């Protein structure tokens, strides 16, 4: 048995030792440890070749490059494209500079974001929301005007909201790698760079709908699902059909008895392994089109789980308290919170207080 096992690299990630095959990236190694450990990824998308390195959300500190050369790497490195070396020591959430940098990245991604979550179809399954919730600051320091774009119609199926885009380039890689002729891309440059077809032209391709699934934010959404529901009101169900174009393995999203949306199946990292065709996605919206396999497994922490909305969180008293706390912090006369308090920490604190109050009131 010893002879057949491939040579493995031993690395230490946030103090945990793990053995992985050579060629593994830090991100892949961390993902083996589980969602609690893996650095956030806004642009990296494992099924698509060439993604990663752009959003800088997954920067980590390498405190020892390898057993042979244990010097630390001078800069933080993107874990999604940095391959491990034997004896590498990586710090993610255990390193303050990593967390501080990440707060900065959230801020950068949000300064020009419209923050229109209440009307955004992606809300509830948005990676930017998750990223901001996990790693962001409570307040913003941005006082300038937010960037806007001219609206472009890119066809009957896909809605483009450029203001929400974080330029991860995933949709470009998708079109390059799973369709035969790319008609959209990134135009212009700098903070005016935008996803566009350049000339008003429908993206017309059997697999074009997949750009919706790979988009980490609400920049590319499903026109046939637009404003139909909120993701937390819908029930995902695994289903398949006999499709001549794709695998036919999908997730159906029900509201009541109605299929309101069809998506490809996503893994725990929100990644699609089997891309689906437009016919499955946009045209097969009857239960009779599908063979139902059963409910989709959803993380206990997802908003899609009804359990997320605990009774105590619904109490108006708590809501008022939160509003009060938040309102004070955006009052300009008060100093900014610069100690790096995160939304998650604040809500933890508030949750604890609310729970105590609720206990006291009930007793």
């Amino acid at each position: 048995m010893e002879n057949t096992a491939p040579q493995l690299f031993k690395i230490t990630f946030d103090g945990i030792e793990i053995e992985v095959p050579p060629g593994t990236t830090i991100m892949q190694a961390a993902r083996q440890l589980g969602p609690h450990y893996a650095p956030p990824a806004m642009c990296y998308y494992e099924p698509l070749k060439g993604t990663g390195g752009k959003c800088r959300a997954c920067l980590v500190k390498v405190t020892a490059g390898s057993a042979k050369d244990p010097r630390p790497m001078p800069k933080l490195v993107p874990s999604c494209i940095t391959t491990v070396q034997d004896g590498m020591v990586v710090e993610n959430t255990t390193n303050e500079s990593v967390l501080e940098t990440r707060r900065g990245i959230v801020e950068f991604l949000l300064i020009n974001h419209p923050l229109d979550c209440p009307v955004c179809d992606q809300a509830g399954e948005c990676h930017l929301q998750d990223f901001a919730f996990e790693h962001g600051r409570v307040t913003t320091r941005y006082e300038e005007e937010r960037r806007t774009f001219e609206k472009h119609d890119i066809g009957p199926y896909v809605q483009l909201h450029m203001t929400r885009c974080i330029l991860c380039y995933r949709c470009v890689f998708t079109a390059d790698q799973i369709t035969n002729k790319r008609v959209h891309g990134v135009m212009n440059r700098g903070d005016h760079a935008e996803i566009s077809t350049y000339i008003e032209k429908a993206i017309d391709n059997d697999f074009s709908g997949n750009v919706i699934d790979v988009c980490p934010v609400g920049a590319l959404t499903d026109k046939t699902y637009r404003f139909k529901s909120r993701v937390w009101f819908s029930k995902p169900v695994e289903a398949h059909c006999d499709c001549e174009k794709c695998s036919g393995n999908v997730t159906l999203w029900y509201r009541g008895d109605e299929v309101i949306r069809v998506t490809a199946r996503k893994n725990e990292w929100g990644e699609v392994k089997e891309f689906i065709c437009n016919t499955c996605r946009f045209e097969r919206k009857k239960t009779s089109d599908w063979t139902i396999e059963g409910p989709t497994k959803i993380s206990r922490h997802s908003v899609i789980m009804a359990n997320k909305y605990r009774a105590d969180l619904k109490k108006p008293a708590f809501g008022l308290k939160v509003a009060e706390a938040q309102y004070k912090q955006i009052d300009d006369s008060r100093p900014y919170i610069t100690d790096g308090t995160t939304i998650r920490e604040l809500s933890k604190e508030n949750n604890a207080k609310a729970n105590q109050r609720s206990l006291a009131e009930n007793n």
Partner: protein
Amino acid sequence: MAVKILTEHINVPGINTFDVYRKMGGYTAVEKALKKMTPEEVVEEVKKSGVRGRGGAGFPMGMKWSFLAKPEGVPRYLVCNADESEPGTFKDHFLMREIPHLLIEGMIVSSFALGANKSFIYVRGELMYVIHILEKAIAEAKAAGFLGKNILGSGYDLELVVQPGGGAYICGEETALLESLEGKRGNPRNKPPFPAVKGLYQSPTVVNNVESIANTPWIVNNGGDAYASLGIGRSTGTKLISASGHINKPGVYEIPLGITVEDFIYADEWCGGIRPGHHLKAVIAGGSSVPILPAHLILNLANGDKRLMTYESLSDGGFATGTMLGSGGFIAMDETACVVRNTWTFARFYHHESCGQCSPCREGTGWMDKVLERIEHGKGNMHDIDLLVDVAKKIEGNTICPLGDAAAWPVASAIRHFRDEFEWHVKHPQEATQPGAVYRGAMELV
């Protein structure tokens, strides 16, 4: 007079033609290298010379050459970076315009050393007239048998291609340049892999600055040791400095590395002093990307010694009291210059030139631009100043390519050394927005 390696014959009439250049001793390095030396020997001389990359990073050229991977059956490329766009820098523009054959000769010698049979000169598109000058020089050299098949009967083939850019500072970053040369957007690549392993068309590639390559003929002719004997310490040879701003004689100067900054500014041989009736306030010594220094710190080190025009001396004191030689774009400012306004124009520059690929640079450069614009126009707040410092810190070191650092340093250093000027703009918005208004408070002039 100091030894001139690049500009000795620059004033000879007709030096831009092959015949005159040849008469002045041109192309002897090609003859020597191709007939009497092996490529390895040329690399060895360049290594010995200690010449450092003249584009801005200052990485030893010989070492960069020695990293070039040499897998069997795969072409290797030499690409000359002539995408000179760093504000304050115009030396390559000058060199290519005045003495194009020097670059062509350097390209032949360097390509031979690296085993490249097709080499590129990537010139920024705005310099189309210089591209025509280079193309003419290439045609002349080819007609004389110094380019093409079997050069001088040595069996070595070389073709030179001049490639125009399209207007993008970012293409001066070597991997962005390679992307651009492949006909793509100038988005820098993630590294590793480095160009020495996977560069142009995924083949091993060396990218060198114009001035770096222009040094190689002299090194081949005179030997690496002779080159290394010029200059001080690890700053060997000479350096082209493009001097601009409030000096008497703006222009391009070839200086021996090691003269004092004071001499460079005030001696008649170089800048000839600050324009009459004015005093030196600040200097940006190596192109817009390097930290700005107030007069007393550019002339002297923190310990009082004279600061020298060398890589080491200019960076002495780190970012607290030092700066960098960079690309040699020397911008001098007198007391009429407003540091806030100047910093804003640079921030606007980086905002305009960011490729937009990675989030800290895409969003951060725009943010700094907007905040600085507000301060400059009398709409700033005190907390904006600290905000700028923090935004700069969040960009620095966290981007794909060095443009992020280059955008952060000018802002951070201007606030470090001229904070009172920023505060004055915030506190006295009406006064500060008068035409030509400049803060004259605690300024130390020389």
